[in-house]
Structures are given as structure tokens and as C-alpha cells.
């Protein structure tokens, strides 16, 4: 990679050598370490997805045994959630950009940042060990008592892997919170921050408050399995629904941990492609916080079909409807930003529009599921699968790719082929809809999730879905090629290739190790594209 980077003092060049990278304290290098790791795990998770979709081409369970199929969907979920989606935007884009966006030289605790990556790697190795030594067939949700008593797979190992990786999340969140509070440059008030920073901050709150609960929960499952201590086993007086409460207390906020960063990316992209201040900046900022907080109050909507009381179900149902409001506010505001903006059709625009369409569908279908009455019928069907993939993949993953492209010149100092990027975005959008829209229909028609065989009448839609997955896979593969190619042959990137506002565009591409030669002094609001038109905020 000696061709990468422009200036000789870019963070990529010096200090040189493997040890310099593996012992780095530079947030930008750590971001690259994470980028490589999560990309590998995306590939692993995608392999499992391929296994699932291939099986579902035919109604009979003829490709894998049901036991193997159970392992495929479980591992697809575990890997994609814990080892790809949760770290993705925060650990790659957040790590890289947060200090620069606020005008700092690094995060508050650089060594803890590096340790968080090593913890991620250890957790990943432990989980891969689980994959090899028997796999996991409990569903990513680890429901007891199957996971804690009966399953013959490597549950304890996998639980420990998830436990360890959780600390990576916690340390990242801790770092971001302290950094945002304490290391903003002079003049960088809260209301001049890029909305991406607000999103990282809100995400970090959730990481801090939620992740420890899943940590103790999987530890209790491991203890039940390994030490015979009964917590969730009815035979020993335990309550499986308690597990569900504890598990979803984290895992619901976890989905916001996965989507809030994506929303932060979209705020940045939407403003850049429209050459306009984000409409209703403070509403978007407060919505991030609202999502982070209300997101902790809704977990019981995952327990509608358990023995949870109907009364509690009503409470959770209302709160779940409430949490949709700030997301809707943001979606309206992004759209309003583009309205009468000077929108240009570079590849970022494609990712943004793709996100807006897919996230809206995903979000609206969440409301279907929030209604307890509907959820009774749709729970554990493909409707739920389609809903969360629209948000996680149509939303978060598209935002991640959009962000990766948008900031690629900054991170690597190279320009990529924009036309190929547009092709990728289109392939992803088309492939995604082809894969997952049929699943809404399948779910509505009653096809249950986590089954490797299904009635004949569902085949056509399943075939469409698998075909879509192929197109989607192509859309993901393409960037791997042209982005890697750009590292060697791409045009050298200027400091501000997109003409965007933000402190990251005032430093070279790629930045130097300490980002700024002197502390920047901030005097403008964020997204100050049209100073004469704008009312100054903050």
C-alpha cells in the first residue's frame, strides 16, 4: 500500500510498519483496523446468508439438514449484528471522523480506543471458535431454556464471544461521550456540531447503558449451561421470560445503535448533495437523543407473544409508536433539505435516496408490528424479517456504504470511479427490494421464519427473494473491487472533492497524524452553505 496517501506526513505513511499499525494510538489508523476486520466478518455473515437463500429456493429442506439450517440463520444473525453492524459506522467512520469533525487531535482516550479493537478481535476469535466447534443453533436471540439447557451446540463459547465483544462497544461509546463533551475546539458549541456527531453521541449513550445488560445476560446463560446454576430454566424454578426481558433490554436499543449512526451519515450526505443547511437542524439533533432515550422504553414489543401481561403489552405498544416519531421527523427533515436544494447527481445522492426509500418502508412496517393485535399474527413470520432487514440493510448498510464512499477520498487520499459507485447503489437498491419485498408478502401469507422447508405455494416469492440476494451480493462485491482499485490507481484526492462543509474537509486528504496544525477556531454554524440565507443557530 505504499502508493496510498498524498503528502509524506499523511497518517497512512508514517510511522511505517506492521507494529506501528498494531500499536497505534491514532484514531484514524484504528478506524482502518476496524474497517478491515468488519469487512472480513461481513463476508462471513454473507456466506451464511447465501446458505440460507440457496436452501429456500425449493420448498423441501433438501440442501441442509434442519440442524445445519438452524446454525446458518443463527450465525448469520450473530455475526452480522455483533461483528458487523454494531461496530460498522461508529468504529470505522465514527472513530475516523469524530475527532476531526469537532476540531480535536484525537479521541479522549487513544489507548482505550486501541484496546477496544483488540477486545473486538478477541471476541471475534472466540466466536469463530464457536462456529468451528459445533456452531450455534439457538437463533441470535439465544432464547432459554433451549440455549441454556438443551442445545448441543457451542452456546457457552458463543456467549463468551458476544460477552467479550460487548466491551469493545462499551469502550468506544465511553470514548465518544467524553470526547464530545470535553474536546471540542474553541467555538464549536453543541449546536454547531455536525449532526453526525450528535448521532454518534446518542449511539454512545445507548452503548453505555444497554450493552452491560446483555453482557450479564449471556454470562448468566453460560453459567446456567456450564455451572448448572438455574436462572432461566423452568425445571429449576427459573423464568424464560426473564431472559427475554433482560435480552431485549439491550437488543432493542441495539437496533438503534445500528441505525442512529446511519442516520448521522445521511444527515451529512443530504446536506452535502443539496448544498444546503439540514432543514430543522435542532429538531434532527434532539430527535437523535429522543430515539436514544425512548429506545430504551420499548423492548417489550418483542415479548408480545410471550406470557408478558397484556397490560404491559399495551404500555410497550404505545411507547413503540412514540419512538417512531423522532425517526419520522428526521426523514421529513432530510427530504425538506433536498427540496429546493441544489442537488447534484453524484453517487452519494444515490445512496441517500436509496436510504430514504428503504428506511421509510422499514420504519412504517415497524408500526404494523408495534400494534399488538397485528403483531400476534406477524410475529415470527417473514414480515418481521423483511421489516428489520429494510432498516438494518436498506437503512444502516446503505448509509454505511454511502458514508464509506463519501469519506473514502478523505480516508485514503484517492478518488474512486463514481459511475461504478452509482451502478453499485442501483444494484444494491434493486437487489435489496427484490430480496426483501417478497418477504413482506410471504410473512403476511403466514410463512414462518427459521424454517428450512415451506409449503409449495410460497416458492415463487422465495425464488424471487433468492434471485434478489444474488443481485444484492453483486452490488456489495462491486465496491470491494473499485474501492481497492482506487487505492492503487485512483486519482489523488483534493482536500474537499465534494465541495462540502465541515472541518474534515479543511484538512488534507488523507489527514496528517494529528489532524490539525493548530486548533481550529469555529465561528460558523454547521452546513454553512448559504450564509446570507441562514439564521445563525448556536
Amino acid at each position, binding site marked *: 500500500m505504499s502508493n496510498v496517501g498524498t503528502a509524506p506526513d499523511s497518517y497512512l505513511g508514517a510511522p511505517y510498519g506492521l507494529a506501528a499499525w498494531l500499536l497505534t494510538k491514532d484514531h484514524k489508523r484504528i478506524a482502518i483496523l476496524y474497517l478491515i476486520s468488519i469487512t472480513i466478518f461481513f463476508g462471513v455473515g454473507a456466506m451464511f446468508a447465501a446458505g440460507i437463500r440457496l436452501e429456500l429456493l425449493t420448498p423441501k429442506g433438501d440442501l441442509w439438514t434442519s440442524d445445519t439450517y438452524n446454525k446458518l440463520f443463527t450465525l448469520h444473525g450473530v455475526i452480522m449484528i455483533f461483528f458487523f453492524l454494531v461496530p460498522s459506522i461508529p468504529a470505522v467512520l465514527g472513530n475516523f471522523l469524530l475527532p476531526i469533525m469537532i476540531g480535536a487531535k484525537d479521541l*479522549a*482516550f487513544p489507548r482505550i480506543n486501541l484496546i477496544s479493537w483488540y477486545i473486538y478481535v478477541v471476541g471475534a476469535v472466540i466466536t469463530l471458535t464457536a462456529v468451528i466447534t459445533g456452531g450455534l443453533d439457538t437463533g441470535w436471540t439465544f432464547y432459554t431454556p433451549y440455549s441454556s439447557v438443551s442445545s448441543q451446540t457451542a452456546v457457552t463459547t458463543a456467549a463468551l464471544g458476544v460477552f467479550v465483544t460487548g466491551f469493545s462497544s*462499551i469502550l468506544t*461509546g*465511553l*470514548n465518544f*461521550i*467524553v470526547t464530545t*463533551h*470535553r*474536546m471540542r475546539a474553541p467555538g464549536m458549541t453543541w449546536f454547531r456540531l455536525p449532526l453526525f456527531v450528535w448521532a454518534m453521541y446518542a449511539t454512545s449513550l445507548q452503548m*453505555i*447503558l*444497554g*450493552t*452491560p*445488560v446483555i*453482557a*450479564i*445476560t449471556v*454470562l*448468566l446463560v453460560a*453459567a446456567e449451561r456450564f*455451572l*448448572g*446454576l*438455574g*436462572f432461566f430454566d423452568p*425445571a*429449576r*424454578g*427459573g*423464568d424464560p421470560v*426473564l431472559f427475554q*426481558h*433482560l435480552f431485549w*433490554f439491550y437488543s432493542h436499543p441495539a437496533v438503534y445503535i445500528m441505525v442512529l449512526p446511519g442516520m448521522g451519515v445521511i444527515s451529512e450526505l443530504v446536506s452535502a448533495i443539496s448544498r444546503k443547511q439540514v432543514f430543522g437542524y435542532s429538531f434532527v439533533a434532539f430527535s437523535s437523543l429522543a430515539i436514544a432515550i425512548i429506545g430504551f422504553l420499548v423492548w417489550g414489543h418483542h415479548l408480545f407473544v410471550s406470557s408478558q401481561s397484556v397490560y404491559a403489552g399495551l404500555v410497550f405498544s404505545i411507547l413503540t409508536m412514540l419512538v417512531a416519531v423522532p425517526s419520522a421527523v428526521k426523514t421529513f427533515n432530510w427530504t425538506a433539505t433536498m427540496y429546493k436544494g441544489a442537488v447534484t447527481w453524484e453517487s452519494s445522492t444515490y445512496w441517500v435516496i436509496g436510504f430514504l426509500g428503504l428506511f421509510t418502508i422499514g420504519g412504517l412496517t415497524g408500526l404494523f408490528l408495534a400494534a399488538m393485535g397485528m403483531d400476534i399474527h406477524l410475529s415470527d413470520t417473514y414480515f418481521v424479517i423483511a421489516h428489520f432487514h429494510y432498516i438494518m440493510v436498506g437503512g444502516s448498510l446503505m448509509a454505511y456504504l454511502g458514508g464509506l464512499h463519501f469519506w473514502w477520498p478523505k480516508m485514503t487520499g484517492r478518488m474512486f470511479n463514481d459511475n461504478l459507485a452509482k451502478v453499485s447503489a442501483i444494484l444494491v437498491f434493486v437487489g435489496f427490494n427484490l430480496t426483501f419485498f417478497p418477504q413482506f408478502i410471504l410473512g403476511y401469507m403466514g410463512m414462518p421464519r427459521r424454517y428450512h422447508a415451506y409449503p409449495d405455494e410460497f416458492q415463487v416469492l422465495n425464488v424471487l427473494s433468492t434471485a434478489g440476494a444474488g443481485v444484492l451480493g453483486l452490488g456489495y462485491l462491486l465496491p470491494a473491487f473499485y474501492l481497492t482499485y482506487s487505492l492503487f490507481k485512483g486519482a489523488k484526492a483534493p482536500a474537499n472533492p465534494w465541495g462540502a462543509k465541515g472541518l474534515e474537509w479543511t484538512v488534507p486528504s488523507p489527514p496528517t497524524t494529528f489532524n490539525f496544525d493548530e486548533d481550529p477556531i469555529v465561528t460558523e454554524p454547521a452546513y454553512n452553505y448559504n450564509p446570507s440565507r441562514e439564521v445563525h443557530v448556536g
Partner: protein
Amino acid sequence: MDQQLEASTLGMWVFLVTEIMFFGGMFMAYILYRILYPEAWVLGSHHLNVSLGALNTGVLICSSLTMALAVRSAQVSSRKGQIVNLALTIVLGSTFLVVKYFEYKEKFEHHLVPGRHFDMSLPQAAQQQLFFSIYFMLTGIHAAHMIVGIVLMFVILVMSIRNRFSAAYYTPVEISGLYWHFVDIVWIFLFPLLYLLGAHLGAHGG
């Protein structure tokens, strides 16, 4: 320096919030099962040695005092104060663990450790076993945190001996102290919740 101490203090408190939530999950299990099985909870509690539990509570409170004094010694650049108080903190923390060891040994001898050897002839045996699962998990993870704390204190002690801390820089002592006090606070809740249930009904164990 002040800014760095402040940032580190904030960071440590953010971490302690994660610890609150971590123990919180276990406390939630405790609360739920206590509501579901109140008599078994009282029966289980009666097997615990209140005197040893109270002794340990006192030991930890003393260690919090010595810890606070150790931080104060660093604040006033007293090397001797730091060394004495940190050493005392370590001794007291270790005492706690030794007492815990004897308590666990007693449980083992009385067949109160959940699993194959649990005494199933006890009244409400399944639920008492649940009580003890939670007892061992809560106190076990607490003890693990104590061990980490003691190791941390050794590191700080060595650094103190090497005169690394003074009024100008004592951040590591401060944040280690915060961790230590937190572990004490967890025990402050554990003692009444585990040891003192139904104490008014008499018939203590041990």
C-alpha cells in the same frame, strides 16, 4: 492537568454506569424471584452467616475510608500517606476475600452449592437452589471485581512507592479509588438483600 483529571473522572464514571447496569441485570433476577418465591428467599437467607456478612460489610467500609485517605494523601503530595493507606486498603480487601472463601467453603460443606450436590431435601429445594444460584453469581462476580480492584491497588501502590503521584498529578489514584468505592457500594446493597431477609424471624444459619 486539571482538565485531564476531569476527563478521566468523567470517563471512569461512565464506565461505572456500565457496571451499575451490569450488576443491575442480576439484581433484576434477584428482585423477580424474590417476588415469586418469598419463603424460599427467607429460607435461603437463613443459611447465610450474618456475622460474617456484617464483618465483611465493616471491612469494606473501612477499606473505603483508607481508599479515600489514600487519594487525599496523593492530593497533598504525602507519599507516606499514600503507601500506608493503599497498603491498608489492600489488606482490608484481601480480608474480605478470605472471609468470603470461608463462607463459600461452608456452603460447599452444607451442600448449598447449586448443581449435582445440592441438598434437595431442603424445604422448597428448587427455589432455594435458585436463591443460591443468584447468591453465588452476585457475590462471585462481586468478588471478581474485588480481585481486579486489589490488583489495581497493587499497581497504584508500586507507583506510589516510586513517587509518581503528587498534587500536580494523581489521576490514576483518583480513578482507581472511584472503582474501589463502587465495589463497596455494590456490597452495601448485597448485604441486606442477601443476608438479612427474615432476620426478624430468628433461626440464623452458620
